[in-house]
């Protein structure tokens, strides 16, 4: 899984090593890292639905890795933008974020991922407690929504790819809504008697 997630990074590293990253290397960097970040973010969001559908609980072990790899690519993506597009100038970045919704959406998604990456360790789950940790990590939903909208606004006319990502995200989030409703309907009376059985070692979201 780690190796699969590293393929885009290895491709870029190879490009840097041979000194050729396409005709516009900055565009290659931005598109490769951005696509990898969003893809891995959606993969991490697919873990819980797949686990429930298949009953294959081992899948949970990949979730943190997928989320962290998504963050890794997001850091590269934002770095590409900050260094090459805005020359590290905070005022240029602020103006760009203020004037252009697609940049704002991308930035929102990235900022939301930061606390999630920082609190991804077992230590932080213990420190925050499963419930609070879970609540914090629900930030991944708006982060993913902002990320796919950012993707949609970034392309010119040929929206097939971002629309595919939006549909996948809608399905992933939709299953959660449906399951949450069903749970609320069947467990509402029972919930009063005992709290939801969440363990700190295996928080769900």
């Amino acid at each position: 899984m780690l190796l699969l997630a590293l393929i885009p990074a290895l491709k870029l590293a190879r490009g840097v090593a041979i000194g050729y990253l396409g005709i516009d290397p900055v565009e290659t960097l931005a598109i490769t890292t951005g696509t990898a970040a969003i893809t891995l973010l959606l993969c991490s969001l697919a873990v819980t639905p797949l686990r429930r559908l298949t009953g294959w609980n081992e899948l949970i072990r990949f979730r943190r890795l997928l989320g962290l790899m998504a963050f890794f690519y997001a850091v590269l993506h934002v770095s590409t933008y900050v260094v090459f597009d805005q020359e590290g100038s905070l005022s240029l970045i602020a103006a760009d974020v203020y004037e252009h919704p697609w940049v704002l959406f991308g930035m929102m998604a990235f900022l939301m991922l930061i606390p999630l990456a920082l609190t991804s360790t077992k230590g932080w789950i213990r420190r925050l407690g499963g419930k609070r940790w879970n609540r914090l990590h629900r930030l991944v939903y708006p982060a993913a929504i902002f990320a796919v909208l950012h993707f949609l606004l970034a392309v010119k006319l040929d929206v097939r790819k971002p629309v595919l990502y939006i549909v996948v995200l809608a399905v992933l989030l939709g299953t959660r809504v449906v399951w949450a409703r069903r749970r609320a309907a069947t467990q509402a009376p029972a919930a009063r008697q005992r709290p939801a059985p969440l363990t700190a070692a295996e928080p769900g979201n």
Partner: protein
Amino acid sequence: MLIRRPPDIPTREITEESAYFGRREFLRAMGYGAGVVAASAAVPGALMACAPGQADPDDKLTPWEAVTGYNNYYEFGTAKDDPAKNAHTLKPRPWKVKVEGEVARAADYDLDDLLKPFTMQERVYRHRCVEAWSMVVPWFGFPLKDLIARLEPTSKTKFVEFTTLADTGQMPLIRRPILDWPYVEALRMDEAMHPLTLMVTGVYGKTLPNQNGAPLRLIIPWKYGFKGGKSIVRIRFLERQPRNTWNIAAPNEYGFYANVNPAVDHPRWSQKRERRIGELFRRETLPFNGYADQVASLYSGMDLRANF
């Protein structure tokens, strides 16, 4: 830089790309840089008027590989490297150009007959895409105004429209309706008659590659690249302003004029700066792509924010 050559020299014999890349370095090494600048400043005004759009000495030519490998030609796919991969199905000869509308010499022309009277010139132009990247390209062609003069438009003509080939046999990908094919672009008559506006048949001293819009395309260097229709099959002279394809596709994003303007952002992204292909960092975008002194007067009194 205006280079006239007798038409009997095959273009392939003219200049190697390596000579293009090396020539400024060569001159600089010879210590002639200042001399060249002085010489071009001394060219009489009349000749300068025939040779507009001279490249800035700081503009290094974008390599052939980028000019012919990084293209927007949606009839052959929407990725930048798609046209170079897919455009081999285009057959640039034999080629017909239909001339119609408010024009005395309306007819179906064979391209070679249409081109016969013109001497090809090299023009080094900055090329700025609406997507905020740019290149410096040594086009080969002739001023559109010379062609228009021969076709004798009537006094009613206010606009000239260019239609790109849309043939599913040569362009199988147009079955997907990404844009409303055929691709149509148009200019106001004074823009079309401007000496910078170029009908292009070649690049880097060679016949125009298919992915660059063979066999005949338009280049208007002070406008975003999408104004320059490729593989032109029809030229129509019109009384009224026609709609152009990108304007039909997204009217709030692409206007009719599409003059390069750092002060007016695309609704989704900034036009203040651009990435020159081959450079890592962005550079400032110039009003009218740096040709303001030659073309800004065409738009005096116009609100360029409304007429984007």
